[in-house]
């Protein structure tokens, strides 16, 4: 069952300050309404994983690692590889993360990142077939949240795409019914570079890339994933509150512009390495 969350209490004064600044077009950390925090990406952080990236967006730190295996394909897609995204809200990342079975936040985060990657066809799953109907590559993307300062979604999408962009797949030779792992590996080719933009709504204002306090004070957030060709592949409103149709259409327009710039910064190392 999904239960109304108990949010950490933000003092009235902090909330008032937030709104006061917003009315002047400013934010608590000095950013403008549509400015992202500092973003840094370190590729190949975990050498033992086939692909990995550590992303820091402001203080939010997320490690994404890709483990590659071989598996039976799903019955309805016998010639396609398997992509599975999992997210772990590691307890050390925040006082509100508790150990235990996956919470609805972690499941919702993983599923949104999955949709962002899958629907944009960032990875061409049909190119991950080894023996049709019998053996395909399985890509497990594990998102490990190490420090939570708001906006897990955008940082997770960036971390995942970067991790995929560094992924090396082992080559297999096919001998009749058997496959044999070879010593060579080849790079996973990315077909798209999606980015997501998350907006927090506070009263009638909205800001991009909310930090933790902005997220807690907000009525709700809207995440929008945009592909390289400026089309959208995933959208989700998270939290209660009401979104006006007009604001929603404004967000789409903004996301195209902000998306271009974010993509440039987030995936600069991948494009260089290609």
């Amino acid at each position: 069952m999904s239960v109304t969350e108990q949010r950490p209490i933000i003092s009235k004064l902090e909330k008032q300050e937030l709104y006061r600044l917003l009315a002047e077009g400013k934010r608590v950390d000095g950013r403008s309404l549509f400015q992202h925090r500092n973003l840094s990406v370190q590729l190949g952080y975990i050498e033992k994983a086939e692909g990995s990236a550590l992303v820091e967006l402001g203080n939010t730190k997320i490690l994404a690692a890709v483990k590659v295996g071989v598996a039976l394909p799903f019955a309805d897609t016998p010639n396609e590889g398997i992509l599975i995204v999992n997210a772990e809200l590691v307890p050390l990342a925040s006082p509100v993360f508790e150990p235990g079975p996956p919470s609805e936040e972690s499941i919702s985060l993983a599923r949104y990142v999955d949709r962002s990657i899958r629907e944009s066809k960032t990875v061409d799953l049909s190119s991950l077939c080894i023996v049709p109907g019998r053996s395909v590559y399985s890509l497990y993307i594990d998102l490990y949240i190490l420090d939570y300062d708001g906006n897990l979604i955008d940082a997770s999408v960036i971390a995942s795409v970067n991790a995929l962009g560094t992924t090396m797949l082992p080559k297999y030779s096919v001998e009749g019914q058997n496959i044999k792992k070879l010593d060579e590996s080849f790079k996973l080719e990315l077909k798209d570079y999606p980015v997501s933009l998350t907006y927090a709504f506070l009263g009638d204002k909205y800001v991009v890339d909310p930090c933790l306090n902005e997220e807690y004070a907000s009525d709700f957030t809207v995440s929008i994933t945009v592909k390289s060709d400026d089309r959208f592949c995933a959208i989700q409103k998270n939290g209660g509150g009401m979104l006006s149709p007009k604001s929603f259409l404004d967000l789409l327009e903004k996301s195209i512009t902000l998306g271009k710039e974010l993509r440039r910064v987030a995936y600069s190392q991948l494009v260089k390495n290609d």
Partner: protein
Amino acid sequence: MGEKISLFKEDGRRTDGRAPDELRPIKIKVGVLSNAQGSAYIEQGKNKILAAVYGPKEALPKHISLPDRCILRCRYHMAPFSTPERKSPAPSRREIELSMVIRNALEPLVMTSLFPRTVIDIFIEVLQADGGTRCAGLTAAVLALADAGIPLRGLTAACAVGKAEGKVIVDLNDIEDKYGEADMPIAYNPTLDGITLIQMDGIMSKEEIEQALSLAITATQKIHKMQVDALKERFSLSRREV
């Protein structure tokens, strides 16, 4: 690869004969369960969904309650026989996400500050699924809340819009959801002109989304009218007791 499934017939009609902006036949009945404080049943195309509300009641254990408002507990669940392949009764990741997304759509609707320290339980059971179940379930849940006499900021109706073979369509059935290009469920409150649920997956351009949103608002307004009629019918004398 498998044969390509065509989602449109030669005359431009969809696989079930509908026009692109046509809703499936909808039947709604309010007040169908004797134990729940409020309940509603909806059939939309082949979807058969039951919603029930218990509460407001004392929130126990006390630590889950909030001092200044009522909390909502929402469960969206699919019966094992609701889909062609039997679905395990254990909640799937999808059901967990949808329970959350539906609860978020109901939070701004319920006037929760009127019942501090209590809880309202909302149950949505999909008995038969054919695409658009979170929307139909939400539409029914809103009626169950109204049936329970819980004060609401108006009503909310939901419908999925999307894209198939380049055309924007309304109220996707299961095949269109699986083989189409995009699916965008939306819940809309006409009294407050607000969207309380919106998700999209697939590929859509900004123009396509604008078009789909406009169709969604028209569709949800139609469904809203059906909700109003169903509520009035529930409490009128002319309804025969079954």
